[in-house]
Structures are given as structure tokens and as C-alpha cells.
């Protein structure tokens, strides 16, 4: 039985490179149809919010997928963990804060989680993804397939260590 993976991608498809997360999720949805041996749940939203903690409670592994203006191109992959931080600024939470909410509302440690941050550069309303972002998307897609094909924490950690 394959591990239950929750893929939580977020971003606004109409704001340039912010579409990177949703674009990757669109590919996963198509790809996963041909992989009934895998147990992957895809969750998409504009931004992370408290209720996403409920999407994660039964996951074996969690992967947050987002555009990242501070990442080195083409993307970064990192292990993350719950954190009581101050990322409640605006109406969105960080991946770390969502994991912390999981802990608080369930009383149990959140599932192991990683962040795939794909380098984005421009986020203007109504703009298409930039040429650079499209290139980063292709490389990140290859990485995402590697992760989903072998959903084991030690494997994901090893890959994250390479970044």
C-alpha cells in the first residue's frame, strides 16, 4: 500500500508566476489518473488557510507547492516542520503555521512535510507566467515526479538534502 500523500498547491493563476503551484497541480491531476497504485490527494487554493490543517490530518507525507520569489532558480526543496510563527500577516498562513494548527486541533504531531518552492519573478494581475518561470516549471515537474514515484520520508529527505 502506497503512502497517503497530500499535495497542497496554492497560488493565483491570474497573477503571473503565482500560477506555478496551480500549474504543477494540473499536471499531477492528469498524471495520477494513470497511476492507481499511488495514493495522492491534490488540494488547490489561492493561499493557505487554517482549514487546510483539516486536509492534512490523515496524510503520511505532505508536500506544499508554491511559487517562491526568494528561492534560487529553478526551485528549492526543503523539509519543514510546525512552527509557532507570525505568518498570520494578511489572510494567509505559512506551511509551518498550518502544520502547527494540525498539532493544536488534533493533539498529535503533524505529518512529515516538505516545501517545493518554484522560483517566480513577476506577479502582476492579468499577466501570463514569465519565460523564466515556464522553464523552472519544467524542471520542478521532473522533481515532483521523482518524489511522487517514491513517497518515502527518507527518500524525500535525501532529495531535499541535495538542494
Amino acid at each position, binding site marked *: 500500500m502506497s503512502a497517503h500523500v497530500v499535495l497542497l498547491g*496554492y*497560488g*493565483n*493563476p*491570474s*497573477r*503571473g*508566476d*503565482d500560477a506555478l503551484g496551480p500549474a504543477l497541480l494540473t499536471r499531477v491531476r492528469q498524471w495520477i489518473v494513470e497511476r492507481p497504485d499511488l495514493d495522492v490527494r491534490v488540494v*488547490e*487554493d*489561492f*493561499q493557505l*488557510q*487554517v*482549514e487546510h*490543517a*483539516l486536509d492534512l490530518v490523515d496524510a503520511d507525507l505532505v508536500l506544499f507547492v*508554491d*511559487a*517562491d*520569489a*526568494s*528561492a534560487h532558480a529553478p526551485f528549492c526543496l526543503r523539509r519543514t516542520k510546525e*512552527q*509557532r*510563527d*507570525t*505568518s*498570520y*500577516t*494578511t*489572510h*494567509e*498562513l*505559512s506551511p*509551518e*503555521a498550518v502544520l*502547527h*494548527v494540525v498539532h*493544536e*486541533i488534533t493533539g498529535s504531531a503533524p505529518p512529515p512535510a516538505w516545501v517545493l*518552492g518554484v522560483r*517566480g519573478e513577476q*506577479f*502582476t*494581475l*492579468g499577466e501570463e507566467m514569465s519565460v523564466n518561470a515556464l522553464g523552472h516549471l519544467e524542471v520542478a515537474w521532473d522533481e515532483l515526479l521523482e518524489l511522487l514515484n517514491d513517497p518515502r520520508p527518507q527518500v524525500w529527505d535525501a532529495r531535499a538534502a541535495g538542494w
Partner: protein
Amino acid sequence: MTRLLETAAHPRSLRRVAIEPITRVEGHGKVTLLLDEQNRVHQARLHIVEFRGFEKFIQGRPYWEVPVLVQRLCGICPVSHHLAAGKAVDMLVGVRQLTPTAEKLRRLLHKGQMLQSHALHFFHLASPDLLFGFDSEVERRNIIGVIGEHTDLAVHGVMLRKFGQQVIKAVAGKRIHGTACIPGGMNKALTVEERDTLRRETTQMIRWSQEAVRLCRDVLEKSEHAPIFGVFPSNFLSLVRANGMLDFYDGGLRARDAQGATIFDHVDCTRYNRYIHEEVKSWSYMKFPFIINLGDEEGWYRVGPLARLNNCDGLDTVFAEHERQVFREAAGGGMQHATLAYHWARMIEMLHAAEGIERLLDDPDILGTDLVTRGEPALEGVGVIEAPRGTLFHHYKVDENDMIVRANLIVSTTNNNQAMNEAVRNVAATYLDGNKLTEGLLNHIEVAVRAYDPCLSCATHALGKMPLVVELVDAEGTVVDKMVKDARD
């Protein structure tokens, strides 16, 4: 009185303090204070990076795409834009009255949005300030702090928001990017299974909403701040039904003044621009709407929960109506003017939405399949709803090829622009004048702005792009001090 602080007489000789961005406000906002050497406030302004490009984003698109397209304007209230655009597009296809099922489905969708938005704001943005105090340690003043010390409350907040999202998903088919509203109706019927799944939870949602109203009322009654914090007279604008009752989805425009006297009533929404104009000010990207016959100085108004409960003659759900009466009695039967009363009004509306959801789910029409109607096409359409944050206007014109050639949006936060500036000036004058600046004191200003739940529609959120920056700038424009609070500090 505080309007005097909008523009300082000699700004170049003053010290500038910028709070940027406002935390726990959707998108970017910045407050600047010009202080003299004794820290007396000479000028206070709320600057907002506005919805520039929204109209351009829509122009040139076929009208039937618009209800879906406008959901991309905002990550927090996409359903509100979807519904307002849907109503405007109804007019473009000549429809002024939907089928009973289509209208009730839209109302259900809207109440789901109202419930989840109000729950998010109170439990996760406002309650930390109210429960822990404006001056408490910054680490406690967030949702994580609430969860740590009020576990049940925070869990209820999460579950209420989740339920609202479930309502949206059931009606629209998806949690985001839904395509529920189509020209002249809805594109999906509600199934018995969907109805029953939601109905099983409504009793609990109503109970938690009642608890939230009581909590909010108790906190404000005990608050030393509430009687004086951001209290100022204003006009109020909202939709009401023909019988004067509150309606989130449809009705006529009603405006009342600070004493409760009617300025105008039951105005056809398609004629909104004969009653409301928008003023441009050089120092803000956001326009300042005002009631034309009162002028820009006296005609600004407030919208949103406080305005709706002040303006309406009643609510058509039992528990919420009882709470509305308590709310009005607290103001001696007159108009509530306290900025913090927004929170109380918001929770009463959340209860009203929860009760309304239950009623709609019990209505046999909600399972109907007659979803679309048609009429004689028109070249202009106006859609107005009461979004969670206040009255929302969508106005479109199309050409003979059905392409949008003109779009005008007045969003709730724009309607509250002057009121938020007024609140900033009021609080700055009351709490900051002559005092040493501290993070807690600066938070007072943020509390005042947050009460309006401004949605600056900045759904982009790339990691690492949202620090809190406070700058001290001297009279020559040189940054002499700077503090950055990164989201991951």
C-alpha cells in the same frame, strides 16, 4: 475633528513613521504618521495599494467569462465577486428575476461565503486583539496564540470556516474557481446527498455562532477600549429589502446619517452612480466614494456589518434578530458608531448566515432543477451585493459583439476608505499623541483598520514577499531607523 489631521500644515518639518504593511489585513496597506519632536501627531493617513488594473483585466473579454474571471481578483472573497458579476451579467442577458431555485442557490452560496469569511476574520484575525488586549505580546496576538489558550474557540473557528467552504463547494462544485453563476441562472443543481450532508451540521454551526456572538459581546462590554476606541459619527450605506429587512444578496440602496435619518432609500441599484461618486486624492491609489448630494466632505459613509445592522429594520432569522435588538439597545436604540462594534455586528451576521443556510436547506426549492432563464439582451448591467466587508458594485458595458468595453468596480474596502482613514486619525489622536511609540501602540492603529476587515485583494503571496516594515524618516526624507518583522522571524 480628526479630519483636520488628514494633511499637516508643515509636513517637511515633521518626523514620519510608516507601518507597512498592516498585518492581518488582506494584501498590502501602509499607515504613515507625521510626528513632531514631542511625538504629537500632525498627519495620519492610510495608504492602500489599490485594485489597479482590475477594470483593464476585465475589458475585452466576452461577458459570459466575467463571473469566472473576477474570482481571480481576490483570494479571500472570490464568491462575492462571482455573485456580483453574475448579477450584472444577468442584466446583460435581460434577466431581472431568476428562477426560484437559481436565486435560492445563489443565496445559499452567498451565505456560505458570509459565514466562512466572518468566521475567519473574527476567530483568526480579530480575536487575538480582543482576547489578549491590544498591548499584549506580539507572539500571542495571532491565531496560534488563540489556539494555544482557547483551544475550543479556535477549533470552532476552523470548523465554521470549513463548513462555509463546504457550502460553497456543494453549490459551486469546487472550493475555488467555481462556475456556479452563469448568465441568467446557475449551472448546477444541489443533490439530495449534498443537501443532507450540509443539513446534518447546521444545528452545530448555529450553536457555535451563538457562542461567538455572546463571546464578542462580553469582550466588548468588558473592554476599556470599546467606549472610546475609534468612535466617530458617520453615514451608513447598505442594501435593504422593500420591507426594510437586511438582505445580503439583493434589494435597494439605503443611506442613513449619523442620527439615523434617511438620506435616500430603496434606490434602484442600477442608478447607483446618480447617488455615489468617487473622489481621487493625490496621496492614495484608492478612491474615496461619497454621497453626491452631501458632498465629499460630509458625504462619506461606512459599509459592512456595522452599516447593515444600523441601517436595516430587522433580520428574518430568530436568533440573529434577537441579537440585533440587543445590539441596537446597547446604543440606546440609535446608531452604533464604535469601530469595535464591527466585530459584534459581524458575529450577529455570521449567526444570521448560519440560520439562513439551515432555512434554505429545508426549502424544497433548493433541490429544483429549473436553473436558467432568459430575457431580452442589453448592453449594460449592474450587479450589487452585500459582500462580507460591505456593499460591492460591479458595472459592465458590452459592445454588439458581447465584449466588455467598460467595467467599473467599487469594492467594499473602497467604500470604507474614508472611514478607515477616519478611524486611523481618531485612534492616532486619542492614543498616540504625545506618547512614546511602541509596537503595542502602533498595533492600536492596526486594530482600528482590521475592524473593517479590509480586503486589499492581493491573492498573490509568493513566499518571502510579505514583511512588516516600520520606517522612521526625517524631515529631509532620510531613513533614520527601520524595523522589519519578517513572516518567519
